[in-house]
């Protein structure tokens, strides 16, 4: 068959049908085809950058022996653009450091959990505050009065003596300054008034002292005597008046 083709071409030559184009011109045509088309479209004002990209796809794919139409080239270009966009977005997402999560950016479930936790913490704090106000008034109660000790009088009498001194101190120093130990713990006061009741014959000797809890140091000491049980209350008032200056 190659012989027939050669003979046919020789006949074309013989009858002067052939108008041969040099190889260099053939190559030139190949390289200038797209530029020529762009030049034409520009000269008639029908060219845009987007269409230039479509032409690039159209001619490039044809060189790769893929022969899409121009319409198909547009679809390929759109797909390529989308792919590039996705790749760029993904790369930026990978490269850019992620900002720390803030409560307002948390998912709804996390927000709900956080809100619940916050409310719980606030409630606990409020409860603790209330508890402190009830059980830990050390800030305001500077002086705590302990039940006095004694080998000669009963516990009720000792408590009564401590209560009497406390009441007088409350009256003198103010209700926020003095408290009975037992109502609050010793650790909740700065100073403690403690004492003892002794009996010598018919005379009761009431000894009281104020101790700085933190320094474990005696700040004040006094004693009063009472001949009768009725005088005990008067003695308590005197002790209270003397101790009042050491409440601060």
């Amino acid at each position, binding site marked *: 068959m190659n012989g027939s083709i050669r003979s046919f071409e020789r006949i074309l030559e013989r009858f002067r049908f052939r108008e041969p184009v040099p190889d260099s011109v053939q190559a030139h*045509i190949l390289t200038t085809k797209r530029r020529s088309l762009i030049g034409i479209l520009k000269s008639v004002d029908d060219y845009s950058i987007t269409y230039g990209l479509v032409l690039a796809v*159209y001619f490039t*794919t044809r060189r790769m022996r893929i022969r899409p139409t121009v319409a198909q080239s547009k679809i390929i270009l759109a797909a390529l653009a989308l792919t590039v966009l996705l790749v760029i977005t993904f790369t930026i997402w990978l490269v850019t450091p992620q900002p720390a999560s803030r409560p307002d950016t948390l998912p709804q479930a996390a927000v709900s959990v956080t809100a619940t936790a916050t409310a719980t913490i606030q409630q606990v704090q409020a409860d603790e505050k209330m508890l402190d106000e009830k059980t830990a008034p050390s800030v305001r109660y500077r002086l705590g009065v302990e039940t006095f000790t004694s080998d000669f009088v009963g516990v009720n009498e000792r408590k009564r003596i401590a209560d009497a001194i406390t009441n007088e101190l409350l009256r003198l120093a103010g209700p926020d300054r003095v408290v009975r130990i037992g109502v609050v713990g010793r650790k909740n006061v700065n100073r403690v008034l403690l004492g003892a009741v002794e009996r010598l014959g018919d005379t009761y000797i009431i000894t009281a002292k104020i101790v700085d809890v933190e320094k474990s140091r005696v700040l004040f000491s006094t004693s009063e005597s009472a001949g009768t049980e009725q005088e005990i209350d008067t003695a308590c008032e005197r002790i209270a008046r003397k101790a009042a200056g050491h409440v601060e």
Partner: protein
Amino acid sequence: MPAKLRDRFTETHSQYYPLVFSAVHTKVDNVDDAHDICQEVFIKLYEKFDSVENPRKWLYGALRLAVFEYYRRRDPGTDIDDVFNDVSLTFVNGFRDARIVIAEAMEDMVHFDGEEDKTLFDLIAVHNFSYSHTAKQLGLTKRMVEYRYRRIVESILDALKKKGIGHIEDLL
């Protein structure tokens, strides 16, 4: 121009540009001038594209005029017949008839599977394009070009046989 029409124009340009450029180049023998004339011809095609039925024939007609204009600008006294002298006139008697038969066979579209086949044939047979360059121009593989060209030539030779030219070598 509507987008669809512009797309069709682009495909038409891509298909016929090598043919038009080759045809012009054989007449003017200058790459830059051939390029300018091609631009001029295709701009005219763009302007009338909507009404053109057969772009190949229209382009050949337009390029004749453009080449004639090219020569006339150089020499106002140029005769178009001098530029496009009919070579068939140089043949006499039987040779002239044989040339006409071959020309008709080459133009008969029954041998071609569409306009692209005709372009492929013209590039190789008339303008002596290599299979490789033809393949690149048309976006085909070299094997495909070779196969299609062979099929077209076989078809033309069969047609020539039917017209009484049994042995093509007799014409040589």
